[in-house]
């Protein structure tokens, strides 16, 4: 017998004795989940306000920008302040706009790239799949955000999102992933909630443990 069969047989034997369901049976419905999870306002405005508050608490920067011109000003200011030399990004409608505005040497990850070069970039600019109001989370996948490393290796991750990408809560985000990718999931789906952090030394918060020290979210 293979180890697979051995283990599955042991499980079946173990389960032949029934356990008492002290807290009830049956998988919860999404409606049941929503009754217990943190409250989210019903209107889009409330949800944007909540996202902004959460992002702020997480020490991420969130900005609603009206038009491309406004995005250009913001990006240029960031670039000047942090003296960006090199930008990493991926192919996408929004990222292309951003990169053109910056006019810096650019590494595009889509066709594969050299890890050392990505490590030398000052910023990773990506799109996303959704913004989650409930938790201030940016949802990215290996398909929407230029692979696995772009949103994690450079010291600053800049996300460019569209207004319509805001979803109210986690159940909505899970449903979106399943609906969008059900027939072919990306190999990585990541819920990014604030810049990388650690509390491993005396429980004192330090940002930028291994991932980006900064997370900036622009919403057009």
């Amino acid at each position: 017998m293979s180890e697979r069969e051995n283990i599955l047989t042991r499980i079946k034997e173990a389960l032949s004795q029934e356990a008492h369901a002290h807290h009830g049976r049956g998988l919860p419905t999404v409606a049941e989940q929503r009754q217990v999870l943190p409250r989210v306002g019903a209107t889009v405005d409330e949800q944007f306000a909540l996202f902004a508050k959460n992002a702020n608490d997480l020490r991420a920067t969130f900005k609603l920008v009206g038009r491309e011109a406004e995005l250009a000003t913001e990006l240029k200011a960031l670039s000047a302040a942090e003296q960006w030399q090199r930008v990493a990004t991926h192919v996408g409608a929004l990222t292309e706009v951003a990169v053109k505005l910056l006019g810096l040497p650019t590494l595009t990850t889509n066709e594969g790239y050299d890890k050392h070069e990505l490590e030398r970039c000052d910023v990773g600019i990506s799109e996303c799949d959704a913004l989650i109001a409930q938790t201030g989370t940016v949802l990215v996948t290996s398909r929407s955000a230029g692979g696995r490393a772009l949103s994690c290796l450079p010291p600053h991750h800049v996300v460019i999102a569209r207004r319509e990408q805001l979803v109210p809560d986690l159940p909505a985000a899970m449903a979106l992933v399943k609906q969008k990718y059900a027939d072919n999931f990306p190999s990585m789906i990541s819920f990014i909630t604030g810049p990388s952090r650690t509390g491993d030394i005396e429980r004192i918060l330090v940002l930028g443990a291994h991932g980006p020290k900064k997370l900036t979210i622009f919403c057009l």
Partner: protein
Amino acid sequence: MSAPLVHFKEDAQRVAADLRHRGIIQTAMGKYEVVRDQRKLWFQDWQGARNLAARTKFEAVNHLDTHLGELAKNLEARGTKVHWASNAEQARNIILGILREKQAKVVVKSKAMTSEEIHLNDAMEKAGYEVVESDLGEYIVQLREEPPYHLVFPAMHLTRGEIKDIFQKKLNDAPSDDPEELTMVARRQLRKKYIQADVGITGANFAIAETGMISITENEGNARLTAALPKTMITLVGIEKVLPRYEDLALFLPMLAVMGTGQPLTCYNTMYGGPRQPGEADGPEEYHVVLLDNQRTLLLADAEQRDALGCIRCGACLNVCPIFRNVGGHTYGTVYGGPIGSVITPHLRGLQEWKHLSYASSLCGACTETCPVKIDLHHHLLQNRRNASAPTSGKPSFFQRLAFRMFAPVANNAALWDLTTRLGRVGQVMHRWIRGSAIDPAQAWTKTRELPPIAKQSFREWWEERKNISDQASSNGEISKN
């Protein structure tokens, strides 16, 4: 006494009296408690959430065979190689086999308690591989050649000074004892390793059957990089980590974060569903998932305690446990410490050798009260006590039997009991002279604690007296007001 018991007693005594240790733990836990409680209020109904989580885990664990089969099928469908390991040795061999085949030199790891469980680092180092832990806390304890102290905070027992010292000694790079600067030392060191490493090894927090994905929760981004840069990725996961559906994460991700660290959501919650897919920019060429039994099916067979397999390793029960806070994480001598460790270790590693952990509890129930998946922890400790002393598991010791043979006749006879109490009152006056010394029969207790005095009046004496007063009162025509 079993060797683990001897170790437990020695360490418990030393650590409980260590005021420095006590200070560190109190500060760390104090901060944690405040944020955790705020976050619980953030939920509309935290108790309701615990119920849903318990229900979800009940379904997951009680149909484990179905879900596990589904998980493996879905992982394989997109090119992941799934391995099955009945025990630690098989799991080690599978992983060493992959390293050999890939001619790996450097292995980078993100936090995985399962790898502690199978002593993977030892095996890989003996086989000549360079192994680097990438979670900051794990990295620190690895440099100190210590096991992790806590499920979630591996280095919480150390001060910044101690961390600076070990960085200075092992890395020759410790500009100051500032936590930020020390973190940046680790960041610099490990960046090189991610890029150099041939293989990345991770643990898992959840395995989603429906979509065939491994979900990893972390704050630092080290697991993200471990899963992004090396050419081969391996995940070692216990078979009990299965969740049936993708949407179950909507509940479990925030609950784990709230109980683990008091965050609304941990910084990175990432699901991996295979190696790099066509059209993707990066990711490993090969993805291996090793499903580990290692006695979990034994715990599964115990219908009474099966719920313990629902544990999401949030560490909350450790944090609230008065024993853990006094004796510290290393005293347990186990991979999984605190209440949950005391419950499952006797199942995973032998009841007789580890039964003492069932007594490392005041049975206050704080663990059960806090557990997000409602594992009945303190009752399981009682059940383990019962099982350990069941007739089938051997006789109690000579002294235990002697003690009870002497106690029984006294306790069964009112006059004898009375006499003993009276003698005790006299005896306790004389006990003062020897209290805490080597000839004190109660030394184990009195060395570090006060012995409460026997009450001046026993309940029965009080009752008699009271009856006399009220008899008198009623014969005087008054109505007792008490």
